[in-house]
């Protein structure tokens, strides 16, 4: 028996790509948001924090629907993107990335923010006396020291991205080879007679991928911790 059918391989690879792109795009923004939330006070901070968490609070289908309305080719943003750059997100893998990026964003921010808050302010004070301005300090002190949280946030977001269903199917539908990620394939399998076995196998694959990602992240986290002198 082959382990994966071509369709399943496609779904797996697509999931990896979609999740990968989502994390890669979301991470810098998440770091920025976490930094701002973790280190500064400003009016409207709680509202901003609330907006960051919104995708977590809403059922994913609703998030997907909001994306559909705003980022579809008829939507405000999506329409502009389409008219101006010819970028089309709906029904594309890029759109799937956007959907999982949005739903996993709060998870990244939370993890990274925790790391930012745990960093000893005394070190930043020391860097200031050594002439480092805010951006400089951000890159030379905060960013390296938040690396474990960043990794943790990335991995949890990656796992969530691998499992995201509602937002994806609602925004970019369920097109094999284009937008049918593993969770959608699992869903599709449950719609078929005797599909449970297939669904179970796909779920096992998901789990294996997540396990590998976790192993990688543990390994990296240990290295990072050694690098930043925590071990």
């Amino acid at each position, binding site marked *: 028996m082959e382990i994966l059918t071509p369709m399943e391989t496609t779904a797996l690879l697509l999931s990896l790509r979609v999740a990968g792109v989502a994390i890669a795009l979301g991470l810098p923004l998440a770091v920025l948001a976490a930094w701002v939330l973790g280190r500064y006070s400003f009016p409207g901070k709680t509202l901003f924090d609330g907006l960051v968490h919104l995708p977590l609070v809403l059922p994913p*289908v609703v998030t*997907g*629907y909001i994306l*559909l*309305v705003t980022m*579809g*080719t*008829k*939507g405000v943003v*999506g329409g502009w993107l389409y008219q101006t750059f010819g970028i*089309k997100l*709906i*029904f594309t893998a890029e759109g799937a990335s956007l959907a999982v990026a949005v739903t996993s964003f709060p998870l990244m921010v939370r993890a990274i923010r925790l790391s930012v808050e745990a960093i000893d302010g005394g070190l930043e004070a020391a860097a200031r006396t050594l002439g480092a301005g805010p951006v400089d300090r951000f890159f030379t002190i905060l960013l390296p020291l938040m690396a474990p949280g960043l990794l943790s946030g990335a991995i949890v977001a990656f796992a969530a991205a691998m499992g995201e269903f509602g937002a994806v*199917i*609602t925004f970019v*539908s*369920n*097109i*094999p*080879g*284009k*937008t*049918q990620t593993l969770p959608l394939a699992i869903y*599709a399998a*449950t*719609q*078929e*007679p*005797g599909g449970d076995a297939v669904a179970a196998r796909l779920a096992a694959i998901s789990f294996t991928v997540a396990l590998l990602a976790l192993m990688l992240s543990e390994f990296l986290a240990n290295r990072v911790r050694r690098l930043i002198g925590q071990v």
Partner: protein
Amino acid sequence: QDVLVLAAASTKNAVEKLATQFKAKTGATVTSSFAASSALAKQIENGAPADIFISADLDWMDYLQQRNLIKTDSRVNLLGNELVVVVPKGSTLKPDLSKGGKLAEQLGDGRLATGDPSNVPVGKYAKAALEKLDQWAAVEPKLARADSVRAALVLVSRGEVPVGIVYRTDAAIDPGVEVAAAFPPDSYPPITYPAALVASSKTAAAASFLDYMKSPDGMAVWKEFGFVPAPKAP
């Protein structure tokens, strides 16, 4: 040019088989995306580059038609289905579908699984049928409202509920359940799967795939998966 079909999830196997056959015949590739009818309709509304929409009920097709998002002249009532009562395999329960019958009592402290009557098509039909049979009021508090036919079916086949109301097509593909009774055809509005070309579709092959699905060859495939021809408009 590929044809993209957005179809209600319950039509998945049949549509895929039709697509394979169509490709063998014409060489044209048909891709399909299966999800809830509501999601698909909204995707079309928001610019999804689809060619054909197959809805599980009339409401969402009407929704698109009101907004001029489908080619009205291409709209057809493609299929029909039947509403049946299923029980877990081996169950001896004989659902009482008589007018004013005791279905609710038969449930005991169990529940009746079906789609959510507020929004899942199968639930709407079930509600209509039970109302017609004067059993709705008794059964309603005992509903387990699933978000799809399949989810309702799982509850039955796992034995978590003694009774479910689903389409015959779904009942046919789940070995864990058996059809214990069918609702009288006049107890609920005809179950209709409408199909249409999407307004923005520019693919010539789309029309011919729609035609193929309506053709006798196509109907044979539908039948194979338990669907029945669309009921005549009342």
